[in-house]
């Protein structure tokens, strides 16, 4: 087997991974592995913006990082760790200026400063943006920076296992897709920046690559996960394709309209209206749909996102990407027609359990970005905070890894990585030997189960059903087979390997959702409709037991200066 060694391995070429690589590459031998070319990473799809209290908008002159922190904590339904939120919000202006200095083409106000727009759950217009392509410009800027610094990138290298032994990480096993070879890589420090798990759900705005296999890989290797039951559903996914229609549509003044022609948000969030946080808007839309005040369509019942009153000029200038997607994918021009939307899975608040330094329980193993749970988003993330989290904590990861390598780092052991790679080799042999079950079928059943039973509204018996189904699917997975024996560019094989990790991710979500008998943020239990701070103001930490069932323990939420209050908008 081919072996390689680096000081640092970074898995994932999105914003968090690239930012960490940029921070480390001048001092260490860094390798960035990404299962797609870095510019294809899902960060590219972020549309609306990145939050920072710059005070550039005339309406936000007295904005401050403390107010940003308050909005984030209130938005999280008080589950976020307040010390971590403070770090993120304090760092935010510096991060945005740094990205601008590196070339990021933000949209501008007439005075030449970075433009900022209103976003959901925010007391001030503090979302910095570049039309509706903010993820695209940030990812390109960081990739450009990485290229300028000569970061060593392994594009289309698919990490398939994590090598952890006696609580220390030694590296990874990765599949070089172009050559069809399994490679064992050692490193003194490994950072996962592998993104979210959207494809565990049937209706998701996420890219096809967002399987959550990185989260599952860490979990299987013994790294605990945190707050997995908190899954964000975005209010406005385009019907049929579930493509994201940015929150900026509402930030720029768009309305949500039901079949009776009402701006129904009036009933649910009379002050914030369409700009209430996502958990609240998604529940409101789902309620309208469930109670029949929706439009009917063979692809699913929907609500209208109406931009027409914004006028042609504003739509062309501020939301050109949205307009193009609508025209390309459903033949609707939002200048002339409302956009048919429904809520869809969008973001993973939970993830690999880290502290605010991106460290985990395992020595030499770090995680940042959507795959990690610090937690800065708690029960519900505010729009514009995910791009911010990726870059802030990518930068922090670089600092933490530097500190770790300068002090305590152990020499990684090659044999442990080889063992992990050999285990993957055995798995591939078994898949090739071929059972009758097909990956796409099991994946489809898993995703439909999760959308049906662990979705926006949840209830004990439904979640139980989901868990039983997941266990059955895990059994059936033993008989999965693949048809393609040639190893290079074999996506059928990669999908089959990833599916195993997806079951564990789904299981941890459902199990956490079953145990948490309250409603907080995006976790809404119809049988326990109230938030219960006495019992549940705590994080759930999931470890994996021998039989594959999650073992849940709890940890207190860090509270600094913002006392939990009732959450109204």
């Amino acid at each position, binding site marked *: 087997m081919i072996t390689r060694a680096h000081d640092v391995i970074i898995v994932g070429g999105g914003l968090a991974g690239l930012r960490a690589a940029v921070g480390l590459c001048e001092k260490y031998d860094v390798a960035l592995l990404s299962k797609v070319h870095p*510019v294809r990473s899902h960060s*590219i799809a972020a549309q609306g913006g990145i939050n920072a209290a710059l005070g550039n908008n005339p309406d936000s002159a007295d904005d401050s990082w403390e107010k940003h922190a308050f909005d984030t904590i209130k938005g999280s339904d008080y589950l976020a760790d307040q010390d971590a939120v403070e770090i993120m919000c304090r760092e935010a202006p510096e991060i945005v*200026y740094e990205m601008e200095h*590196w070339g990021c083409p933000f949209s501008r106000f007439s005075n030449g400063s970075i433009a900022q727009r209103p976003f959901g759950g925010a007391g001030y217009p503090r979302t910095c943006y570049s039309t509706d392509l903010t993820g695209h410009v940030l990812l390109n800027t960081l990739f450009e920076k990485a290229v300028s610094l000569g970061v060593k990138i392994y594009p289309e290298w698919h990490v398939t296992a994590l090598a952890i032994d006696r609580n220390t990480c030694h590296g990874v096993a990765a599949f070089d897709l172009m050559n069809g070879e399994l490679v064992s890589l050692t490193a003194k420090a490994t950072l996962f920046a592998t993104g979210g798990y959207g494809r565990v759900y049937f209706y998701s705005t996420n*890219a096809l690559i967002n399987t959550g296999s990185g989260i599952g890989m860490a979990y299987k290797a013994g790294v605990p996960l945190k707050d997995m039951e908190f899954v964000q559903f975005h209010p406005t996914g385009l019907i049929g*394709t579930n*493509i994201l229609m940015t929150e900026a549509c509402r930030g720029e003044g768009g309305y949500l309209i039901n079949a009776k022609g009402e701006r129904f948000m009036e009933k649910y969030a009379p002050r914030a209206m369409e700009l209430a946080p996502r958990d609240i808007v998604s529940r409101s839309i789902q309620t309208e749909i469930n109670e029949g005040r929706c439009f009917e369509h063979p692809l699913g019942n929907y609500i209208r996102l109406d931009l027409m009153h914004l006028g042609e000029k504003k739509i062309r200038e501020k939301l050109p*990407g949205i307009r193009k997607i609508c025209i390309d994918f459903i033949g609707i021009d939002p200048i002339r027609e409302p956009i048919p939307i429904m809520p869809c899975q969008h973001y993973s608040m939970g993830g690999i359990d880290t502290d605010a330094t991106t460290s985990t329980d395992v020595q030499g193993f770090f995680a940042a970005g959507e795959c990690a749970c610090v937690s800065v988003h708690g029960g519900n993330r505010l729009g514009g905070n995910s791009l911010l989290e990726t870059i802030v904590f990518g930068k922090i990861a670089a600092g933490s890894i530097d500190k770790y390598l300068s002090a305590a780092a152990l020499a990684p052991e090659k044999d442990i990585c080889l063992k992990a790679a050999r285990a993957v080799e055995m798995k591939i042999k078994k898949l090739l030997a071929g059972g009758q079950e097909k990956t796409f079928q099991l994946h489809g059943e898993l995703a439909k189960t999760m959308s049906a039973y662990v979705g926006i509204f949840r209830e004990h018996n439904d979640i139980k059903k989901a868990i039983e189904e997941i266990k059955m699917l895990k059994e059936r997975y033993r008989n999965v087979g693949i*048809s393609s024996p040639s190893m290079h560019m*074999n996506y059928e094989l990669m999908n089959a390997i990833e599916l195993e990790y997806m079951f564990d991710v789904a299981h941890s979500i459902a199990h956490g959702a079953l145990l948490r008998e309250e409603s907080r943020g995006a976790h809404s239990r119809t049988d326990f409709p109230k938030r219960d701070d006495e019992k549940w103001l705590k994080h759930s930490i999931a470890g994996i037991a021998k039989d594959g069932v999650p073992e849940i323990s709890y940890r207190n939420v860090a509270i600094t200066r913002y006392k939990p209050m009732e959450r109204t908008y």
Partner: protein
Amino acid sequence: MIRASAYTFKILRFDRKKPEDKARFQTYRVKVIPGLTILAVLNRIRDEIDGTLSFRSSCRSAVCGSCAMVINGRIDLACRTQIASFGKETIILEPLPNMEIIKDLVVDMTPFWTMYEKVKPWLIRSSPDPEKEIQQSEKDRAHIDQFVNCILCACCYGACPVISRDPDYLGPAALAKLERFVLDSRDERSRGFMDEVNNEHGVWGCDTVLRCIEACPKDVRPTDAIIDLRKRLFVDKAKKLFGIHR
């Protein structure tokens, strides 16, 4: 009710590791609803009919640039092309031209990225960074808009007739990227930098037949970039001739 129709997909198959098996078209018959995209059908073919088929994909919403290919003779992203848009029951899929096929619809994009890196595609500054943002007017920001929109999908690179005869030509995407920085009011790269593209493999290589503009799924116009870069070189030369210094 939406009714499914029968379609015939003819897909070019080739494996770089088995060059003795010549490239050939393989036929797949599928019954799908016409509202589906080429990418959705490709996924179904790989899942349900033939697991050995290779193609790239990710965002399925025309922003990541993974799935560029030739669809019934036209270069486009598979994810944004609807099967019904051709008004035919037969759809022919081929990999992007001008790059070596690795397997089926997956091409080796290494030369594309090499050319991209050659133009130094990052903001170059000589002034120290201000404490806050570098000021830029709305008008200056609007100047670079179309070039910022490039998703590096290589549709233009595949469509360019110059690359097919001169593999050392920088190509439309790299030159459009260079223009994105040259046009950026914040960029301070030295004028001498243009010398590196002042040749037949650079801005003078373009045939200006606009194939790149036609192929771009994001309405970027690389030929405009190339013509503007040529103008800049002319102006510089004229200034030198008449002894005018900036």
